[in-house]
């Protein structure tokens, strides 16, 4: 789960990493109230889960009081890369003497946690790593040491970011606190871009991005609350609550599959035959008929649905349980579209027999099923 800048900065401050305070505004009126707290100039920053805010006009610096309402209004009307702006973070505009890049992340390839730095701030780190890899440096940290890093051991790294010894020392200190925050909140990324030295030589986080591990949310009530308030697609949220992974698309072939890899391969083969999947849906590795019913309920809400393709390769999942889920769905909902069922694996004979009794024909291969679904949808 991605946190907004204002949420990430609140956590950074809580752990002792300097970051400018600010106010969250959802209307132009609320934005104006910020002037009761901060003196001008202030920066208005769109809070959206996407990059490229600056280029899209999502960040404005306001120098005069009369400018703040129209500026806030203009940003709140923006949609940045399909993300409508719903909130602004208003913060005192900083004087930037020097800016650098600093992040702490999970390095998949190394199976470790690592600090990543670059002496240029505000950059696109992925593009820089590709075009000028010599500018980007990395420092692996064993997970067992992350909560008790010694700032002295980070001075080499920090010195590559800021030549000034006092600024390097401040940076090494805040890196130790980033380490504690990372572990304490099960982060997978804390990115400070840019980390700046201001006119007084104080080092602080001017922007912040933080991603936390969805698999660890069970032990973080504060982060669960953020997720609940995050405006997630309601059908995707309800799927998650039922133990399904559901992602909505624009096509007309509903898909119910067990396993993420097989679900992706099913989407691929449908498109290979000219069809368009309405969704990605992984019922997971369990044989609970209720999950199938929940899957039907979600998919049947899809506008323009033409066919449902159920593709199951049962290992831990039992085909008779899936068949039971299909039968219950047909009894419970008004299913007006055809269903193509491919059922193989554990208890497949029982499962197929249950469906054939009520006239549902099953197919045995993925290829056959995908082709039939695409044909019904009018694509093949």
């Amino acid at each position: 789960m991605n946190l907004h800048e204002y949420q990430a900065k609140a956590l950074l401050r809580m752990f002792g990493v300097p970051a400018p305070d600010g106010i969250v505004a959802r209307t132009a009126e609320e934005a104006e109230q910020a002037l009761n707290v901060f003196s001008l100039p202030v920066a208005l920053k769109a809070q959206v889960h996407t990059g490229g805010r600056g280029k899209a006009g999502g960040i404005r610096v306001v120098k005069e009081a009369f400018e703040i309402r129209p500026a806030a209004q203009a940003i709140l009307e923006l949609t940045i890369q399909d993300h409508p702006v719903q909130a602004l973070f208003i913060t005192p505009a900083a004087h930037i003497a020097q800016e650098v890049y600093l992040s702490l992340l999970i390095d998949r390839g190394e199976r470790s946690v690592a600090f990543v730095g670059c002496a240029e701030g505000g950059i696109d780190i992925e593009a820089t790593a590709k075009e000028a890899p010599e500018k980007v440096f990395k420092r692996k940290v064993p997970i067992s040491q992350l909560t008790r890093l010694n700032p002295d051991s980070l001075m080499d790294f920090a010195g590559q970011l800021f030549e000034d010894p006092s600024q390097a020392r401040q940076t090494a200190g805040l890196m130790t606190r980033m380490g504690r925050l990372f572990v304490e909140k099960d982060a997978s990324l804390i990115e400070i871009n840019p980390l700046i030295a201001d006119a007084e030589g104080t080092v602080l986080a001017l922007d912040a991005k933080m991603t936390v591990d969805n698999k660890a949310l069970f032990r973080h009530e504060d982060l669960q609350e953020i997720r609940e308030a995050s405006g997630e697609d309601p059908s995707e949220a309800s799927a998650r609550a039922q133990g399904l992974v559901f992602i909505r698309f624009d096509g007309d072939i509903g898909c119910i599959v067990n396993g993420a890899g097989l679900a992706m391969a099913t989407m691929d083969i449908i498109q290979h035959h000219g069809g368009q999947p309405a969704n990605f849906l992984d019922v997971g590795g369990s044989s609970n008929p209720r999950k199938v019913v929940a899957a039907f309920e979600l998919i049947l809400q899809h506008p323009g649905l033409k066919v449902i393709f159920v593709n199951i390769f049962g290992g831990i999942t039992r085909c008779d349980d899936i068949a039971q889920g299909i039968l219950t769905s047909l009894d419970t909902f008004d299913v007006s579209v055809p269903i193509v069922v491919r059922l193989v694996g554990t208890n497949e004979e029982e499962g197929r027999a249950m469906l054939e009794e009520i006239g549902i024909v099953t197919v045995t291969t993925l290829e056959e099923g995908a082709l039939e679904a695409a044909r019904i949808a009018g694509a093949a």
Partner: protein
Amino acid sequence: MLIDANTKVIVQGITGRDGSFHTGQMLAYGTKVVGGVTPGKGGQTVHDLPVFNSVPEAVSETGAEVSVMYVPGRFARDAMLDAAEAPLKLLVVITDGIPTLDMLEAYETLGSKGIRIIGPNSPGIIKPGQCKVGIMPARIHTPGSIGVVSRSGTLTYEIVHVLTEAGMGQSFCAGIGGDAVIGTTFTDILPLFEQDPNTEAVVLVGEIGGQDEVEAARYCRRNMSKPLVGFMAGLTAPPNRQMGHAGAILEGENDTVAAKIERMEYHGIPVARLISDVVPLLRGMLQPSEAPQ
């Protein structure tokens, strides 16, 4: 190849629903399951096997070298660190939903003791006809000379199924798991296949996210004499959406399936776009002279 007919296996979480069911399935396959572990339930029996309170106790009583874990995600850290205290060779983690930092900690700790981890979120490993350590449906496998290594569970079954239908048995199949941080990667497994006298060729099943498939292709070109064929899922996956597996998220243009297939083919690894293409590609690699152009 990590396991064989003589490998002694213990089951962590043996008293749970999945652990108990799959212990029965493994015993039925002929796997030498010798006991299990559930803290606080030592002294009980499951399928007539002794249950112990800790992994070190279970290992010293049974001589097991391999543990397979069905413990729920939120208890997985303690279970993995318990396994680190025993002289095991291998820990196979079936559990899905383990926090990434717990996994990193376990990888560091078990790695320092020389214990290999397979998984998490893995269907397990199987040497057909000899030993099954995991949850895969036994009957789709048949002994033979094709190695299979995959990041996915059910997709692996699909590939194994088409191989078996085509008369191509398997030497060893490993599901390495769909998470972002896993104990054993493609490049960790490939040397084992290269050294295994029973393996003639390898099928590598990958998906969106990360660079492991490309690393595997580079490794194969430099270090392997045996042919490798790829299959990749997620050619049509949209960016910035996590497709079920924690590891299956596109973080940049480099880890799309299309980009990865291009890099793999650059390293000389043929990649099937459809499951039905895997067998013909494999046949072509095994009998180059008869390969269709």
